[in-house]
Structures are given as C-alpha cells and as structure tokens.
C-alpha cells in the first residue's frame, strides 16, 4: 500500500516535471504575446522527432540534442511570431479579436506542422532505448531516463524563472506582459520581445519533447494530446502566471498518475473532468490574477 502510494507520487512528479515545462512555454506565449498557441504540442513533437532521428541515424546522445533542438524550434517560433502573428496583431481591431484570430491561425499551424511531419516520418510509433534501467527508491521502481528528464525539466524551468526575474530582458518581457503599449513607449522593442517570448516558449516545448522521447514512444500526432494536458495545466495554474504553470504541472502529474494506477484509460477523461470543475469553480486558476 505504502509502496504503491510512493509509486504514484514518484510517477506523478516525474510526469509533472514535463507538464510543467511545456505549460510554462505555453503560458509565456499567451501571457506576453497573447497567442493561445494550439500548435504548441507540435513543437514537442518536433523536438521528440529530431532527437529520435539524431539518435537512431547518427548516434547523437539525446541530451546533446538539446543544443540542436533548442535553436531550431527557437528560430521557427521566432519567425512565426514575426511574420504571422505580428501581422495579425497589427491588423486586429481589438485585443479579443486578435486572441480569437491568432488562436485559429495556430490551429492552422498545427495542421501544417503535423502533416509535414507525417509526410516526412510516416504515422508509426517510434521509440529508442536510452538509460532504460530501473531505479529502486524505497520499493518504488522507475526508469532512470525519467529521473533525468525530471531533473532537466526542473533545472530549465527554474533557470528560466530566474532569467525572467533577474535580467534586463526578463524585465522587458514582464513589462510587455503587463502593458505592451506603455512598455513600447518606455523603449522596449515590443516586436522583438514578443518574438523572443514566442521563440522561448517553443524552445520549452521542444526541450520537453527531447525528454519525452527518452521515456515514451513518439508519433507525429502526439502533439494534440499533450497540448490538451498543457492547456489544462495552464488554466489550473492561472493563465499568465509562470509559477502557477510550474506548480500546476506537478499537481496534474500527480492526479494523472493516481487515476492511471486505478484505471489507465480514464486518465484523460479525469483531466477533462478536473478542467471542467476548475472552469466552473475558479476559472482564473490557482495563482491567476
């Protein structure tokens, strides 16, 4: 009983770390650039597939893939924000109109990226084995690669938070999130900051994809499933609150692992149920303003 409880907690934390990382990325994009990026899950998929391809074709260590995946998804995200979303933002009559149109455009991106991936890699499930041996912690057994994934996810998450709080660019980002117009008047290059945020958000999804590919099988349409979980985490933590997403990720990971241990096929339904309850009781989330 105790061991199974420990198992649930450890599995939940391992899963939660990845959720937290992805959710922070999405929240950065929504909180600052005001784009609810439905294509966010596709960056996870891209990160996972690039890592898989590098490992199986050239034998590159998945952890080294971080330095390959990071820049690639950053550039893609940066360009998308500078072209598509900037032109939508400047032509939109109002903030809600922009949020609606950019969300729909990101649905379009989802279909584009997903189907390009399907054409390149085919629809099969892929997996590789990396640090795939068991670690025993007080009776609970889990794979070593998942612990690596958790550590990296937490380190990246905290490093990003420090970047946001301590550096000048971080300050500019926070200013842009508060009030883009005023921040612009104060000398913040708003288009650059928004594109930077979008790129960084994509990087977090891409890196989460790197870690995911070490632990789970991957497939080109995986993005949507993770996106839905991510949306729930972001709403749970509070739209626009980066620490909220971090905490929300772990909470949802724990809930998911508890439900999975009881009835695996209901995990996703449980997420929705929580999500619906949350939207009814407290739509602004745990740390939302």
């Amino acid at each position, binding site marked *: 009983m105790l061991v199974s409880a420990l198992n649930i907690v450890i599995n939940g934390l391992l899963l939660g770390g990845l959720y937290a990382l992805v959710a922070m990325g999405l929240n950065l994009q929504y909180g600052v650039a005001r784009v*609810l990026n439905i294509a966010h899950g596709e960056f996870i998929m891209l990160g996972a597939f690039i890592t898989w391809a590098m490992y199986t074709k050239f034998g590159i260590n998945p952890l080294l893939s971080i330095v390959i995946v990071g820049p690639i998804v950053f550039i893609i995200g940066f360009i998308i924000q500078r072209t598509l979303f900037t032109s939508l933002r400047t032509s939109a009559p109002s903030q*809600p109109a922009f949020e*609606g149109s950019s969300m729909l*455009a990101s*649905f379009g991106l989802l*279909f*584009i990226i997903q189907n390009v991936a399907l054409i390149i890699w085919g629809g099969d499930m892929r997996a590789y084995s990396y640090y795939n041996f068991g670690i025993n912690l007080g009776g609970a057994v889990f794979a070593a690669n998942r612990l690596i994934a958790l550590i990296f996810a937490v380190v990246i998450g905290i490093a990003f938070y420090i970047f946001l709080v301590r550096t000048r660019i971080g300050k500019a980002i926070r200013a842009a999130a508060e009030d883009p117009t005023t921040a612009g008047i104060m000398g913040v290059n708003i288009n650059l900051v928004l594109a930077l945020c979008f790129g960084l958000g994509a990087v977090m999804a891409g890196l989460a994809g790197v870690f995911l590919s070490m632990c789970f099988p991957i497939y080109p349409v995986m993005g949507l499933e993770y996106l839905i979980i991510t949306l729930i985490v972001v709403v749970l933590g509070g739209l626009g609150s980066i620490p909220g997403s971090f905490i929300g990720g772990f909470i949802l990971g724990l809930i998911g692992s508890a439900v999975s241990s009881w009835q695996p096929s209901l995990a996703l339904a449980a997420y929705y149920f929580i999500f*619906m309850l949350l939207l009814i009781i407290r739509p602004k989330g745990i740390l939302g303003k």
Partner: protein
Amino acid sequence: MDIIRGVFKMPRLWWLISLILLVLLATLPLYGSAYTVILITAIIMYVILTVSWTMFFAPTGYLSLATAAFFGIGIYTMAILGEQLPLLPAVIAGGLVSFVVALIVGAITLRLRGVYFTIFTFGLVELIKHLLLFWEINVTGTRGRFVVLENNNTIFGVILGIFVVLMLTYYLLRRSKYGLALRSIGENEEAAAHLGVNVNLLKVFTFALSAFFMGAAGAIMATRWTYVDPYVAFNVLHSFLPVLMAIFGGMSQLYSPIIGAVIFAYIEEQLLTRFPEYFMLIFGVILVVAILYLPNGLVGLVRKWWQKGLREENVNS
C-alpha cells in the same frame, strides 16, 4: 448600376431566387446522378454545420469548437435509436439530445469569456469521445456500432429539409428583437445586461438551438455511413471545418456562410479524392491564409470590390 443596386435591395426577388434554387435542389434526384446527390448531400451537411455555428458566433462573438460534439451526439443517437424509431423522429431525437446537452453545457460554461470558452468546448469533444470509448470497451465490450442504412435520396430529402428549417430559423432570428439582443451581447455584454437583456438565457438558448441543427445533421448523416465508432463520430475536424468555412465565406450576410461552405466543401471533396495525404496540410495553409487575408471572408471581399466599382462609376459620371 442603379438598377443592379436596386435589385439587391428587393427582398421579394431574393425570396424568388431562393425558391427557384430550392426547387432545383429538391428535384435533383429526378435528373441528377447518384454521385451528384451524394456530393450535394455532403455539401449541405457542411452548410448546415457552418450556418448553425455562425448563428451563434456571428452575433455573440463566442467561438465554439463543440460542433463535432453535437454532431457526434446526433450520430450516436441515430445509432442507438435508429432501429426503434422511424427515420424522421430519430433525426429529431438526435437534434433534441444535442439541444439538451448544449443547454446543460451552455448553462455551465457560457459565463466563461473568450479563450476559456473555446478551450472548454474543444475539450468537450475529446471528453465525450474518451468517455464513450471507455464505455464501449469496459461496459458493452464492443467497439463501434452499425446504423440502419437509408436510401440516398431519402437522406438527401431529409438533409435538405433540415437546411430549409435552419435557414428560416436563422432568418427569423436575425430579424427579430432576439437577434438584436444577441448582437448587443456581442457588442458589450455588460451594457446589454444593464439594458434588461436576459444575457445568460439568450446565450444558452441560442447555443442550444444551433446544437439542435448540428445534432439533426449528425443523425441523418449516420444513416449514410452505416458504421460509426467514437473516432468517426467525434472527429475534431467537424469542429474546425465549419469555422474555416464561415471565415472563408464571411459572416455578415445571411448567405455568406453558405457560399463559404459550398465552395470549401466542394474543394474538400476534390482534395480528399485526389490528394488524401496532403489534404490536412492544404487545409492548414488555407486556414492561415484565410485568417490573414480574408478578414471579412470571400463575400466581404467581393462586396468591397463591388462598392469600390460603384464609387468609381459615380466619380466618372
């Protein structure tokens, strides 16, 4: 030019044109091939989904992605009731079940604004799909269901009937004071509430009304597919295509979503048969391009050119 402009303002002529088109459509099985009937059925299905989606979105500005959920509920209602009930009552039952579900969902969620509402409705499709899958695997032990097969011409007749009822409903809604109240919600919800508009009731009812038509369309289309499972019935594409078609055609006029849906559904049929593996890719590209360059839809674009042409004409004369 004045004559043409006058023609556009003659409601009686519009009724006549609509009536002629309707008679042409209704007699289609007499002169059209079986393929044409099936193609037009598919197109009308999309028109129904698009118009009923627009009916709620255009005045209120609430972007729902639950179309696939209500459509799927209609499909499953037909799969379950199709053997016990005659066709028409089963179709109406499909609509009514969707209507009731939408009432409940709407009552819970329509307090949510903007993106929250959209995410929620999107999640709804997946939630119902997963619960059904769970139910089928663990309770009934089956996967999917067979539906009573219907004659193509019967299906065509029923779907045309749904379309006519929908258009009349939408027309009356736009003309009535309820339509005006709905639009006031879209403009400024607080102000509308202060003016004595029962904001919540009106939103929930219109949402449910649009769901009724989606459900009815799902129920009749189920008889064409003969076999359904949760993946077929609750395909998220049925949530997105109506949005895309409405954006593509525009939403300002009664007829603009119809035009978007007809053109787009036809393109979709062609793409699906010729380039099935590229269909979704092209779909994504069109979605992005339409949002970027067609803010008022195709109809909006044509009207803009039209008005520009008129203005230049006036300058010249």
